[in-house]
């Protein structure tokens, strides 16, 4: 092992959504930061969007599923024991490379689930506490949208105008209006006008294979250039195997495999984990020692537990007229939060968002569309089925709030490992009764609004397997060390110089895409860290 590297003040593991925001924030205060990332920089000009066979990239190197993608920087995931497959991307930018950039915030009640609804717990901060950080994150990211949404408290002005709806968005908006239900143009981390030195979106469609124009915000084009400009050292191809602990019980650095394939040790005064809701518990569980035989910072036994996804039901309307859904950002148009807040008369607690998704090219249509409705029939019925659907569908993604349950967990697989022999994560997850009832309700309401919008036929997928983009809860935040892994400042109860800042810390999951809230929390934690660093020494 090479230990020649001198000790850094703050070592961040993971260069994704949270790692980037945190590293930037600290660098603004002149704090020395190094980040280790197992992937590399992606060149936007190399995304497949301009290639003739761009559609095939989704089936191979641009698949969101690491088990399909199998790039050298990927690690395998055992998801056999889960009806939802975890999805992520390893690179500078992390999963923001392939996200659809649908960017709503958690709502005020999402921070008070325990107090309001008697299930799960509260976050130790409120929406108001995070507002300045939401605003700051929106400013750096560049959000397209419109203020005045009655589903949220008043927000600061959005950076660019709302994403254009196209025939597809206008059609479904009319459906919501007919029923008198809420809808609003989604806050989206996509430039609709030039912003932040990046061009506007040209509505090409497949955001999921990377943004060729850098119009979609991924942290490699938003936070990282600023952070690196401030002096943050970002080491790519650095795959961390474990966080080590000194005789005083504090973290003292990370052991990692470098691009040369050799093992290195990077010493640090403070270690910050930003490896997502799968990668972070995996790293902690792989970091055992005499003091932490069950994994680092795991005296509560909760590292890896309370895994939350967002269970997605997909409801697709087939229309007689072309909706041309292949134009415009694939996941960003409008959303409805008509059924977001708890109403126990529905038969479940908490609620869901209806995110309107567009459609994609002929390959996607033939393979079952955005909704994952199964491949189209082959043989004599094929042409007719294809003609009915191509450019004539729109899909409602029902995003249900998942509740934290102890048995839903990330553990270390006894056999599976990555190319460096680091044990891979195993996911064990069952869909709760509450989620099933909720999604059933969402499917019925979605069918109603699709019919109101003029759909001739509605098909539904009760649970989309390829939907595990949102990985949450596995190193939860709380005030009680017996009931949480990190404290309200993101610091591990057990290890006073170890922090977690990714989706693992979420106490509850909300019913929206979590990245906006994860990044706001990362910036909040960064500010508290900076205050603490000024006020006291941590050793």
């Amino acid at each position: 092992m090479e230990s020649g590297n001198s000790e850094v003040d703050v070592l961040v593991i993971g260069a994704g959504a949270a790692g980037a925001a945190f590293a930037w924030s600290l660098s603004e205060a002149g704090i020395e930061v190094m980040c280790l990332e197992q992937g590399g920089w992606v060149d936007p000009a190399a995304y497949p969007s301009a290639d003739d066979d761009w559609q095939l990239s989704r089936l191979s190197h641009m698949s969101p599923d690491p088990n399909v993608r199998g790039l050298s920087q990927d690690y395998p995931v055992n998801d056999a024991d889960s009806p939802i497959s975890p999805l992520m991307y390893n690179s500078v930018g992390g999963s923001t490379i392939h996200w659809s950039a649908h960017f709503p915030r958690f709502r005020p009640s999402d921070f008070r689930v325990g107090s309001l609804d008697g299930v799960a717990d509260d976050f130790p901060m409120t929406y108001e506490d995070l507002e300045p950080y939401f605003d700051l994150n929106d400013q750096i990211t560049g959000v397209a949208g419109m203020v005045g949404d009655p589903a949220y408290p008043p927000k600061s002005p959005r950076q660019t105008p709302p994403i254009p709806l196209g025939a597809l968005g206008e059609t479904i908006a009319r459906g919501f209006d007919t029923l008198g239900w809420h809808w609003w143009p989604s806050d989206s981390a996509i430039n609709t006008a030039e912003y932040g030195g990046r061009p506007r979106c040209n509505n090409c469609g497949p955001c999921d294979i990377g943004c060729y124009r850098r119009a979609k915000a991924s942290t490699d084009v938003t936070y990282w250039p600023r952070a690196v400009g401030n002096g943050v050292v970002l080491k790519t191809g650095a795959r961390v195997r474990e966080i080590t602990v000194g005789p005083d019980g504090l973290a003292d650095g990370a052991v990692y495999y470098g691009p040369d394939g050799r093992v290195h040790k990077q010493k640090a005064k403070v270690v910050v984990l930003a490896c997502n809701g799968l990668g972070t518990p995996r790293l902690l569980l792989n970091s055992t020692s005499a003091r932490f035989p069950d994994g680092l910072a795991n005296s509560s036994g909760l590292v890896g537990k309370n895994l939350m996804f967002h269970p997605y039901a997909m409801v697709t309307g087939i229309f007689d007229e072309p909706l041309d859904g292949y134009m415009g950002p694939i996941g960003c148009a409008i959303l409805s939060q008509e059924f977001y807040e708890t109403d126990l008369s529905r038969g479940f607690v908490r609620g869901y968002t209806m995110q309107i998704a567009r459609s994609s090219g002929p390959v996607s249509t033939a393979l079952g569309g955005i909704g994952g409705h199964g491949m189209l029939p082959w043989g004599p019925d094929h042409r007719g089925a294809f003609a009915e659907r191509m450019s004539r569908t729109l899909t409602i993604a029902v995003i249900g709030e998942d509740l934290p349950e102890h048995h839903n967990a990330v553990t270390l697989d006894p056999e599976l490992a990555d190319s460096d022999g680091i044990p891979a994560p195993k996911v064990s997850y069952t869909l709760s009764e509450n989620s099933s009832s909720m999604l059933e309700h969402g499917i019925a309401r979605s069918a109603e609004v699709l019919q109101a919008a003029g759909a001739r036929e509605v098909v539904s997928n009760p649970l989309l397997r390829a939907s595990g983009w949102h990985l949450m809860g596995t190193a939860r935040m709380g005030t009680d060390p017996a009931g949480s892994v990190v404290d309200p400042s993101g610091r591990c109860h057990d290890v006073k110089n170890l922090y977690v800042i990714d989706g693992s810390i979420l106490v509850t999951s909300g019913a929206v895409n979590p990245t906006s809230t994860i990044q706001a929390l990362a910036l909040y934690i960064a500010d508290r860290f900076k205050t603490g660093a000024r006020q006291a020494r941590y050793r």
Partner: protein
Amino acid sequence: MPDDSTTFLSEAQATLLADVLDSIVPGGDGLPGAGELGVASHLDGVVSGSTRLRRVFTEGLAAIEIVSSRLFTRAFSDLSEDQRVQVLKRIESEHAAFFRELVRQTYAGYYTRQDVAALLGLEARPPQPLGYILEPFDPSTLENVKGRGKIYREI
């Protein structure tokens, strides 16, 4: 021009596969079938890159001939279209994993093609660098929603 060269499939397998593909995505409405279009070479490329798929497809193609012979005492290529569909339905239930992969790769190899896109009446080009033009968002469409007032739970 379709690339008719193959790397993994034997000539006999390639000929059989082309007939199979014409049954999976048949020609019609001015579009050629997947076999006629040469999509077999796409499958050949995909299959030859994977030891597992090579085994699955070797067994699967052999099974098609066995079932064809069992049901109709003739080679697949000598069957009528109806008979071919019957054979493939049997394969679909008896060799489900192979058949799923076969259909999936046929759709991928067929619909990725620019000439197919053009015949379908779509713009036969990748999404970039041109993108598409959409009318800007019209805020006046939000009047109904705004009129309803606040719908979030205050804490």
